């Protein structure tokens, strides 16, 4: 119990007073593109699902890192540091993207969901059981490939909402602000994203 109580402050202590000889130093910036370029590109693409935007984000991230390289404190690795910068850039770019974007793509997909149910609100053709053992499913490359494909096929805003929620664990309040939608629309977007994902997976996986 005592350890539990003191745990967080020890942790804090360790971060602030890390001995200098354990701190890592940065490699020359000219090597960053070859060492981390593909990684950052893949990381960004998985979250924004747009190649052009992902390329811009890699460039912005590396430029920002170059400017900030003197403030690299040596806590954690170079890769973690760059990834952290990229995460901020992703949120910033989504915020910019949706700042002036009206929320208008809603109706069409709402209807699509509505069509999955009869007039009593019951499933027309219900969700199937994908596997008797879900853990086993998660081990299969073919299944994970379908997840990637389906994520890419989602409407843009839905994909962004889902990645902020499921990957970054952002609260719905934050997601609403970034995507510039009301709280209610935020839940609708997430619901729709999951609904379309499961529909896409079911079509691809069970055929």
């Amino acid at each position, binding site marked *: 119990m005592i350890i539990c109580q003191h745990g967080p402050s020890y942790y804090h202590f360790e971060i602030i007073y890390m001995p200098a000889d354990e701190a890592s130093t940065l490699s020359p910036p*000219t090597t960053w593109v070859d060492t981390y370029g593909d990684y950052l590109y893949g990381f960004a693409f998985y979250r924004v699902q747009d190649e052009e935007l992902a390329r811009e984000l890699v460039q912005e991230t590396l430029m920002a890192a170059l400017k900030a390289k003197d403030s690299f404190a040596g806590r954690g690795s170079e890769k973690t540091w760059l990834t952290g910068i990229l995460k901020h850039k992703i949120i910033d770019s989504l915020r910019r993207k949706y700042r002036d974007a009206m929320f208008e793509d809603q109706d069409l997909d709402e209807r699509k969901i509505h069509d999955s149910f009869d007039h009593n609100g019951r499933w027309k053709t219900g969700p199937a059981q994908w596997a008797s053992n879900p853990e086993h499913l998660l081990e299969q490359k073919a299944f994970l490939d379908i997840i990637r494909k389906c994520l890419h096929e989602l409407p843009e805003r839905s994909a962004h909402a889902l990645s902020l929620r499921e990957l970054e664990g952002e609260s719905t309040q934050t997601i609403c602000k970034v995507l510039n939608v009301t709280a209610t629309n935020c839940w609708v977007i997430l*619901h729709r994203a999951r609904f379309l994902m499961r529909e896409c997976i079911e079509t691809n996986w069970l055929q």
Partner: protein
Amino acid sequence: MINHWTFRCEDVSEMISRSMDEKMPLRIRMGIRFHLMMCSLCRNYKKQLWIIHRAVEKLDRMENFYDKPMRLPDQVREKLKDLFKDHE
């Protein structure tokens, strides 16, 4: 009163998603649980959302996942390297 306990699948599917993002009122949670007890399709739906959540997360944590599938185009590489040269 009976309506509280007889949610429709269409509404339950939305509530299941929402319950992944925030804590729902007790009345709603009980209603969902009661519905799930009787509805195997909505049970499947709930499991599917859970699997999707786990799979999306798993891909993100997979070793080398981000290195392999995509290559930053040479044009972008060269542009960045050029910019970085000036800063050395």
